[in-house]
């Protein structure tokens, strides 16, 4: 997505600070020298003291705007940032949004959330669940071609055989 081209600053340090890596098919050029900008690309020229703002900008470019959804539990209705949700799962007739400390019942269809959150790092793992990739702690492939995902709260979510291929591809994207 990005190409980093530095003249004065250390390129490696900049990448570490901005949590990015250069890629061949890039859309943005990040540079500290306006002579290094490229035609046909969106160039961002910045100085070292702009680093924090640039970070926020990149967050926005990568993740887009924050998405909030509303759900409820026994304590009432809540509005939460989807980035805090570990996974969504259908239990009975309800769709649950599982957070680290609590869970909410949300009034969405699973396919609606799948579409809404595709760009936010969520991925379908079975007919009943969508998982936030950043909240996966560890992936355990099983001998029978299934995959188990250990979430940061130690819950285990299974990736069904029919979703395995798309799961792998989304990890590679």
């Amino acid at each position, binding site marked *: 997505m990005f190409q980093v081209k530095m003249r004065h600053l250390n390129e490696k340090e900049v990448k570490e600070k901005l949590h990015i890596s250069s890629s061949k098919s890039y859309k943005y050029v990040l540079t500290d020298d306006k002579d290094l900008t490229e035609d046909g690309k969106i160039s961002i020229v910045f100085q070292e003291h702009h680093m924090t703002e640039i970070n926020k900008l*990149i*967050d926005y470019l990568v993740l887009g705007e924050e998405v909030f959804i509303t759900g409820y539990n026994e304590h009432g209705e809540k509005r939460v940032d989807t980035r805090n949700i570990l996974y969504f799962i259908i239990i009975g007739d309800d769709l649950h949004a599982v957070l680290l400390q609590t869970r909410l019942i949300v009034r969405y269809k699973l396919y609606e959330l799948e579409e809404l959150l595709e760009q936010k790092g969520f991925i379908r793992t079975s007919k009943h669940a969508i998982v936030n*990739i*950043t909240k996966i702690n560890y*992936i355990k492939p099983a*001998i029978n071609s299934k995959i188990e995902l250990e979430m940061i709260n130690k819950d285990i979510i299974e990736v069904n055989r029919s979703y395995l291929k798309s799961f792998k591809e989304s*990890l590679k994207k």
Partner: protein
Amino acid sequence: MLFLFNNPLLLIGLLLILTLMFLLGKQMVKEIHYNHLLAHKKRALRYYDGEVPTNKRLYMIGSLALAPVLVIGLFLGIRLSADDAFVDDQFLQISNGQQIVELQKDFREKYLTSYRNYLFGFAMMEDDFTAVPETDASEDAGGEGSDDYSDTNNQVEGVDEMDNVVTDGKFIYTIQQNKIVITLAYTLEDEYDVLGHYKTITYEDSFNPTGLYIDDDYLVVIGYDYMQYDEKQNDDVGLPEGDYYYGYYYQSQVGVKVYDVKNDYTIDHSYLFEGNMIGTRKIEDQLIIITSNYLPYSEEEEINMDEYLPTYYVDEQEFVADYEDVRYIEGSNPNVFLTFYSLNLGTKEVDQNILLGDSAYNLYVSNDNIYLVGSVYMFSPLADVVNLEDPITETKTAIIKLSIDEYDLTFRNLAHIEGFTLNQFSMDEYQGYLRITTTTSRWRFGDGEINNRLYILDEELNIVSELENLGKPGETIQSTRFVGEYAYLVTFEQTDPFYVINVADPENPFVEGELEIPGFSAYLQPFGQDFMLGIGFGDSKGGTQGVKISLYDIRDKTNPLVHDEIIFEYSEFGFAYTSVTYNHKDLLLSYAKGLIALPFTSYDYSSESGQYYNSGIMVFHIDDEGMFSFGGFVQHEEDSEENIYVYKSKFIDQYLYTVSNKYIKVSTIEDPLGILNSTEIE
């Protein structure tokens, strides 16, 4: 590989382990791959903790996959680390008593699953002479002795072997039960007239002399001593009063007493070595003593090996071995401490080297090295981990070599060869090479084909060459003698092939000549350059019912001949034997004097006189042409009511001295029967 096919269960197990290792390995690779992708994805999603996650599970899978490798690695590691502790890669250094107990346990666990229980080695008690009765009388000892007298019939020139009768050209020293009798035999002035008792050394304690060495400075007396060291009481073993407990424990000891010859045989110093005697040699003023101490084994009791560490005393001062002086040969039964002592008779210093192993059975000592042979069991390497039906893959002979550097002995090398040696004459060192003959599957080792071999080993005991299948099928080696660049070998089953083997080129020994005759020689000794004397068994009918003395003509190595022979048939003499067939030191031989003399004993029974017994020295003269002529049969009392056993002969100048348990008699070599003088030593 063949071993795996012969053990299908092991093969299946191994395949299962390999399959499991493969699956687990594949799983690990997959898991690492997925989690790398996950970390990468998290970083792409601006999730900053996107390190590659690790998990105990991965360690577990890894451990499981590597477990068999680790087990095998550990197993090999232990073996390798054990090897590391080997001195010169061959002798394992012992560090403590518990290690010995473990070695014993390990050996038994492996060994006792074998059916070959009869393979245990046996101790050799070399030079265990029959003691003869005591003496009295006394006389003056003025005058010089002769320089022309008979030494002990040693295998190697310069390496003295102890004997029960020795002479220094003036005195004859004999052992009479618990006494050493010194008889004045000859002086240049009065010759044989002086024959008479000179001195008696009597041992009042438990010392039992068995062998003597004499030189210009020292008279060395070697014998056994017994010490009761553990008398258990009935209470100790839980027996009721009145029952007798037979558990008296005697510690056998080897005693060495050194007398000053120039100071009228006063005691100079003495040594005591705990253990049984394996053998002894003397090279100038260095005395070599080899002892064995049996080690107990118990599965119930904890044995303190410290109590069994070889101990010796110099003039009653005690010295106990350290474990670090102990070496072990892998595969040998760790039931004996074999201790090699080197004594400097001048300084009384003692060098002690200990080998933990099985009992040895043949000793050969050259001027530079000691070679001791014993049996070892070659275990299958898997015997440590798998309970095999027969863990012993083969039984071999181990040759242990120690170098003699001044007065110090050092463990040098170890070699394993096939077969068993017959006696000390099976070995010979020549220009640094050890030549050795062996027979596999002698009667006591039952199974398999008989194979007689000659090996030549270099200084590091690497096998340089090997001749196999000597003799005809079914024949075993009866005697060997190495003389310089030739080996003479007698094999026997029904006839006696006498082989001349050219060993001049250590890498290419070959049978150069062969002779087939009835009977066989149990002892071979060179007689000058041209002849080989053979003493053994044979009769005129082609069997072995008699004592046979042969002189082989070995001038033409390609065509050895029987030059002359004499046979004493049992049908004529009654059952007869000569001790030379098993004790070469009883043979008196002088090429210069054309003399061969050996003890000869016959038993018979007649209805008139009952059983009779004849013992004497058979004397032969050999002329310049190498032909035997019978010189006479010297007996000390004819038709005696006592059993007078004439067991040794010596010469001083032209006189022949014959020694029995009652007399020393002197005659000329020329006329052995014409007794000139006699002294009673009983």
